[in-house]
């Protein structure tokens, strides 16, 4: 890790440069040295130094302050530590005024310098993490960052703009990884509620009781461990939007509670007797077919219609293959910069492989695949070899959905399909099904399948 934070030592005394570099290398840093300001500036042009130790007094040419200013011009993020043999307040003030981060008088205690370096690097690490997170957040909030040239997606984007200022409930449907939360954020952050909270709740991640207190909050003493009153996500989202992800997984009791909130915008905290009123826009998402869930009696019909005021169905990545190159290039640029790797693009062969792949995990899978390829890549361009592990499951739909039928029926269908694929050859079909021939004959009889 420390190798990612190179250090430069600038001093006209050879012994100073050599000894300081040796000491820092023992700590695992990559260290360069320069005998004068001119050489230091030249080095700074080609390497992004995290810290530069610069001697204040260097005879002839540029002095420490001039060197510092020139390095700062090229590398504004570099932390400069001015070194001097004399402790004079005036020089210290001048150095700090010109932008030095620290000022040290040599010789100093090893502990002092070790702490100084680790403090500066800790701060740098935090700043760089912060920049990455900020970038991520801003990216998620903006419409124009939904990358697409697919007509269906473009329609969806213009719909999100139109509905952003309404309070109507939105139901977003789509397979895992198609970007349901991204669209929900786009709706929230382009409307009048953008300045108010956007609260996400993953309904499938919590048990019924936990989800209830998570959504509606609880009063002190309402259950063991409820030591004080706590606000739920609905209250926290007041004025803004609550995003209920995987809504198809909530229990019948919560479905009833939720219906009440949708109708009245009021609810009770768990263990509470006083009603709480909120102004919240609800955006729900699911990868299930809720209409089918309603038919099967697993999802309340009234709740379904309350949620399904505006429906957005996100296409899978398979249905918008023309976006694969755009998205892939975008992820390469973003991830390589986040990981600090010098990868600039994808070869035509590799791109073809990505376009042909079926992406059962959709855009999220594509993002992960690109990240993995960048991590293991040794060239400036991702080629086919970097994706050699990406195997297309053959002869089977990657998003194989198990229909809700008796197990025996599933078995019957599997046998029929295997026989069809093997053109009625029982031996080959039994091998494909992983059972022996006599077992297959038994099953053919039992299910009355003719072949």
């Amino acid at each position, binding site marked *: 890790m420390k190798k990612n934070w190179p250090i430069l030592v600038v001093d006209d005394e050879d*012994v*100073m440069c050599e000894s300081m570099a*040796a000491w820092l290398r*023992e700590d695992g840093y990559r260290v360069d040295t320069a005998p004068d300001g001119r050489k230091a500036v030249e080095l700074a042009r080609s390497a992004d130094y995290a810290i530069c*130790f610069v001697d204040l007094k260097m005879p002839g040419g540029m002095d420490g302050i001039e060197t510092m200013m020139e390095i700062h011009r090229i590398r504004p993020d570099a932390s400069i530590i001015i070194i001097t043999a004399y402790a004079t307040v005036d020089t210290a003030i001048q150095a700090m005024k010109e932008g030095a981060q620290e000022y040290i008088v040599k010789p100093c205690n090893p*502990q002092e310098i070790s702490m100084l370096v680790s403090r500066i690097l800790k701060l740098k690490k935090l700043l760089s993490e912060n920049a990455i997170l900020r970038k991520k957040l801003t990216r998620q909030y903006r419409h124009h960052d939904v990358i697409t040239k697919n007509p269906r997606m473009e329609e969806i984007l213009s719909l999100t703009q139109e509905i952003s200022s309404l309070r109507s409930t939105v139901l977003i449907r789509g397979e895992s990884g198609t970007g349901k939360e991204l669209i929900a954020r786009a709706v929230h952050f382009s409307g009048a509620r953008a300045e108010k909270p956007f609260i996400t709740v993953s309904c499938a991640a919590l048990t019924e009781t936990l989800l209830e207190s998570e959504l509606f909050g609880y009063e002190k003493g309402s259950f063991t461990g409820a030591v004080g009153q706590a606000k739920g996500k609905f209250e926290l989202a007041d004025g803004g939007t609550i995003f209920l992800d995987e809504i198809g997984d909530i229990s019948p009791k919560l479905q009833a509670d939720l219906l009440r909130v949708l109708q009245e915008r009021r609810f009770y905290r768990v263990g509470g007797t006083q009603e709480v009123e909120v102004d919240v826009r609800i955006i729900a998402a699911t990868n299930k077919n809720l209409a089918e869930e309603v038919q099967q009696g697993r999802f309340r019909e009234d709740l379904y219609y309350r949620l399904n005021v505006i429906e957005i169905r996100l296409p899978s990545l398979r249905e918008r293959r023309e976006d694969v190159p755009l998205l892939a290039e975008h992820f390469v640029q973003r991830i390589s910069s986040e990981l600090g790797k010098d990868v600039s693009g994808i070869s035509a062969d590799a791109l073809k492989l990505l376009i042909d792949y079926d992406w059962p995990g959709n855009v999220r899978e594509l993002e992960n695949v690109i990240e993995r390829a960048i991590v293991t890549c040794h060239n400036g361009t991702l080629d086919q070899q970097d994706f050699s592990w990406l195997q297309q499951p053959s002869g089977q739909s990657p998003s194989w959905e198990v229909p809700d039928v008796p197990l025996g029926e599933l078995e019957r269908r599997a046998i029929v399909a295997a026989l069809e694929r093997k053109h009625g050859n029982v031996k080959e079909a039994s091998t494909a099904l992983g059972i022996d021939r006599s077992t297959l004959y038994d099953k053919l009889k039992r299910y009355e399948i003719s072949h």
Partner: protein
Amino acid sequence: MNELCLVPVGSVSRQALDWIENAAAEWFPFPVQRLPALDIPETAFDPKRKQYQSIEIMKMLAQTAPPHSRRILGVTEVDLAIPMLSFLFGQAQFDGPVAIVSLCRLHQEFYGLPAQESLLRERTVKEVLHELGHTFGLVHCSDPACAMSLATHIGLVDSKAERFCERCGLHLVQRFSREEEV
């Protein structure tokens, strides 16, 4: 080229050299050869600070190294420093052949306390393992008990153990076998 050469720089007690030889033999699988003492180079002395520049001594050690030496470990009783730092317990060429350890600040007497031989032995062994570890490519370790952890004052030397942690130990074993192949 297979020996670990131990070189007193100035006067160093036989007892200290015995401790070092035993510790080196225990952790590093190379024969240890004790070489005659070298005089401290005059150029190393800094009259203002009344200390010795470790880099100058290391340069001398490198120049006088016998051709068969794999690593050269200098041991001295004088107080070492570099221009930037007020003192050093020792210094090494990272992933290089030369290292030096100063016993000066390992003595209890340096801190105005009565001499304590067993403590001096422990400290000496820890510093020798630390500097030799650097010559085999080990950087400072985050495990405070490992000999490779950075000690910027004597308290931190005392809180280390006379051993490498598992990770640093494994690095050394791999490194030794690579050097053997070469």
